[in-house]
């Protein structure tokens, strides 16, 4: 998702309109979470990536937020009027890519 215009919603008179048009766009593909669900989570108090994640499951799926974290950061940036560096990213956890239970705990490879 790409927003037109400048970084902050106060500088972008079309922001609300844009959000309305794009509200059904899926931001987190793995968990099928839309833009409007993410904005709702921010309105309910989420202030960073983990806050959005815990409220919506965005970033909890197969890719572990590899694509949507950056998008969510942009949405947070616009909703909270903050610079990206002031928005905490999600916690990195192993495994880096999915591994099977067998690869992890098998004794027979």
């Amino acid at each position, binding site marked *: 998702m790409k927003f037109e215009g400048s970084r902050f919603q106060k500088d972008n008179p079309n922001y609300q309109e844009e959000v309305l048009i794009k509200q059904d766009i899926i931001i987190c593909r793995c968990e099928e979470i839309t833009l409007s669900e993410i904005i709702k989570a921010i309105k309910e*108090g989420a202030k*960073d990536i983990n806050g959005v994640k815990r409220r919506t499951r965005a970033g*909890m799926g197969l890719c572990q937020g590899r694509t949507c974290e950056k998008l969510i950061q942009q949405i947070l940036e616009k909703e909270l009027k903050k610079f990206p560096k002031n928005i905490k990213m999600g*916690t990195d956890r192993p*495994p880096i890519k*999915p591994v*099977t239970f067998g690869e992890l*705990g098998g004794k027979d490879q």
Partner: protein
Amino acid sequence: MTYFDAVVIGGGASGTAVAYYLSKKGIKVALVEKNDIASGTSGRCDGNVLIADKQRGFDTKMTYTSQLLLKELTEKIDYDFEYYQKGSIFVIESEEELTVAQKLVQGQREDGYPMRMMDKKEIHDEIPMLADDIIGGIEIACDSSLNPMKLSFGLSLEAKKNGAVIFDHTSVTGIRLDKKGIVEAVETDKGVLITKDVVNCTGVWAPYIGKMVGLDIPITPRQGQLLVAEKTFSPYWRKIQEFGYVMAKSQEGNYKRNIRSELEKLGIAFVFEPTLSDNFLIGSSRAFVGFDTDVSIEVMQGLAERAIRFFPVMKDIHVIRAYAGLRPYVDDHIPIISKVDEVPGFYIAAGHEGDGIGLSPLTGKLISQMIAGEETILPIDTLSINRFK
């Protein structure tokens, strides 16, 4: 400066439940949370609400009461926290376990709890993917499960509707007492909250808040790690635990599981929890490693090994994430839900170890009744901090 009848410190399942039940009584309450709601232990745990592994008597009664309160909450709060009561299963590996299991089930049945034995044929008919050598099981019909983060968010939003004020990303810096040593105010990095009652719901961090009023709270972090599986077919639809671990934990006889000593050292026991998000969680582990929430490869391997032992079919399912959380451990395994005689107006609701999520509504209810000066739904003597004197 703002006045509140009560200030709750900590925005996990316990704190949000306390805030919710207080606000329902019309008490003006503030909740102060250092980070975000459900960002500590309540955001790094599982959602089991089980009587399965409880001691006979009061321990079981606490969880059972909490299950009833949770069911009530699903109708009262306008937020789906994915509560479902489908029951849980214990799987039994050996004759020795079977003997102890039969005794446990008989006792719990006498007390009126819905538990029953399953023989070898029945357990394999019920769970076709289970390893062939499992000799039996127990079904615990009332056991349930929920989403701990959603429970915390739901309770805090509902408390807010009732007039509670949530101060998230706000740190408590001190607790002010008057000349007589009675609670007067809570100092935070965003300002002072005048109040007469403070509830310390900060789990593993409770000792820090305790120190602010010169109190020693005997809670230690006990780390646990979990694996998250990909969305796939579910090997079974209800929660499953290995019975051997409960036996080893409660030290029935000199019971030793047939398990590698490395796994025993890491405190690994098989727990399987399917979630409403079509994936499942695999636990569990236990370690005293301070406030460390990093996951370790040894524990991940151990959890996977133990999972395959019970469900060989899992070996081809993917693990997408591992995480660790900190249980607030108390050495007698009983939570501290208590007023503090030395500091009038100071309450503790912490130290639930692995049961904080399940016991959160009961915790909230008890504290709200204590503060309102009402009779409590369960006797609170055994939960008092005075037992450590």
